[in-house]
């Protein structure tokens, strides 16, 4: 029983080692699926190119260009697609393809799987947001913040927002029982949400009741938070509440994060469909 002896002596790799190894693997797989890169990663850039070209002027009664507005809001949308959409669909597909079942048969702590998913999303999110800001600053008149306060706002909204989206993705991906229908279930509500959260239509042009519905969901707060980092300070008077509402943004995003965490812990099905 040489193998048994060796394994008692050998040390099992730590959860963090395995989590980091899984981040690397998830990113490698991600890079190799061109449709994911084009439709997931490049989605906000494509939308920015379209909206930025269709609306070259300024938003009425302001000095803010539509291009600046869309650049900020679409950066937030990108975080939602990278964080929420790709995690939820990815987990549903992992379950469909028996990948989750295989992992359960391996000496892997479950947390390493989530570290892999969320870590790879963080890397994608940083890359996508940096690219968005660079392209928007070069071609669409976006002003990159010059003072630490605005950078601070950008960083906390980005980190909290992306974490909320990713954990929400884990919660929804854990409930979905079918990878093939996952795209429809996840993508369609997200498109509706983009209409009522001030992504496609500026908040100044949306009816009050739609804004109120949008305010229940995290995307509206994510957009508003990112706008507060990039748009001139006077723009806040045109926001639904007449201010940037940073405390409220923090509360709503944190509430969704905690709710999604609780839901993930309760509903995540490691066994998949094999419990008859």
């Amino acid at each position: 029983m040489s193998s048994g002896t060796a394994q008692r002596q050998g040390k099992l790799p730590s959860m963090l080692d395995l989590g980091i190894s899984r981040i690397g693997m998830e990113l490698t797989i991600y890079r190799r699926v061109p449709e994911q890169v084009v439709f997931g990663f490049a989605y906000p850039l494509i939308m920015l190119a379209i909206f930025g070209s269709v609306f070259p002027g300024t938003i009425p009664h302001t000095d803010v260009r539509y291009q600046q507005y869309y650049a900020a809001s679409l950066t937030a949308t990108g975080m939602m697609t990278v964080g929420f959409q790709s995690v939820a669909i990815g987990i549903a597909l992992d379950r469909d393809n028996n990948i989750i079942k295989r992992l359960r048969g391996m000496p892997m702590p479950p947390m390493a799987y989530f570290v892999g998913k969320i870590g790879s999303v963080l890397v994608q999110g940083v890359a996508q947001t940096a690219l968005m800001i660079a392209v928007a600053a070069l071609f669409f008149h976006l002003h990159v913040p010059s003072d630490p306060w605005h950078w601070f706002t950008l960083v906390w909204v980005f980190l909290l927002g992306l974490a909320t989206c990713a954990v929400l993705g884990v919660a929804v991906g854990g409930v979905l029982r079918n990878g093939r229908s996952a795209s429809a279930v996840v993508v369609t509500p997200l498109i509706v949400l983009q209409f009522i959260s001030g992504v496609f239509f500026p908040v100044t042009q949306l009816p009050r009741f739609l804004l109120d519905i949008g305010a229940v969901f995290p995307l509206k707060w994510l957009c508003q938070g990112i706008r507060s980092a990039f748009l001139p300070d006077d723009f806040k008077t045109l926001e639904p509440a007449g201010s940037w509402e940073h405390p409220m943004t923090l509360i709503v995003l944190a509430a969704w994060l905690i709710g999604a965490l609780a839901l993930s812990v309760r509903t995540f099905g490691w066994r998949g469909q094999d419990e008859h």
Partner: protein
Amino acid sequence: MPARQDRVNHGRLSPRSAKLVGVTDIDSARAAEPAILVRGLAKRYQDVTAVDGLDLEVRTGETFALLGPNGAGKTTTTEILEGYRPADAGEIRVLGEDPATADRRWRARIGIVMQESRDIYELTVDELLRHFAGYFPAPRPVDEVIELVGLGEKRGSRMTRLSGGQRRRMDVALAIIGRPELLFLDEPTTGFDPSARRQFWELIHQLKAAGTTILLTTHYLEEAERLADRVAVVAKGRVVALGTPAELGGRDRALVRVGWTDPDEGERTETTAAPTKLVVELAARYGGEVPGLRVQPPTLEDIYLELTREGDGA
């Protein structure tokens, strides 16, 4: 993961040399204890009883086959032993632990080839094995595993470009990368062509020679006969027969069918407990050579069909 490769030499001793080098108390205790011990296992799904008081003992180092019709409870039993499903009742020890509560260290000692795997990865054979090797404290070297499963020419190919048979060999590769003491194979060769099946059997023989305990579930009786030291036939969630492939269900004592072609009467067959006597008589009758002589002991299939006949309605 490369950092972990330096530990792999720990377990390279063959089982035989390990015994010569000196066996620890724990090792001798383990050798005495069966790899799998199951008493009175039961599992129900709503109103269907999948496993109904099943007993099983698999000795360390042995290759043990579970045979039985679809729905007999083979996969449910296997998945309970692998720790995928909880049992409703029964006493279960796998490598000395209860799979339902076993930890990562226990998981590192078993290898699983699932009945159905659909992993589709945009990773190469080499990359995927290197990744999963990093999960284990003392993995087999990746090159050795690739060689063992015969995927040398495909090591740089992505999983999405492998044939069905190659994918199945990759399943085995992933199951043995951690150098398991106990390997579960659930219908490993379903859908293989005859030559792929033979290559696969050769691989299992090599793992067996290296001291791996194997629990094999299969529909193919020839496979059980070629690979298994002992066979259990499962029907309606219970073991209905247990033995070596040669003696299962009284096969060694069963009647033998002797057939020949009579010049006048045509095809003749007779079943007898004394085939040698009959052949000698026939030789005398035909004056030496018996025309078209065939002596057929019951096949494992005959015995199996006999044993599982009552289970057909299930």
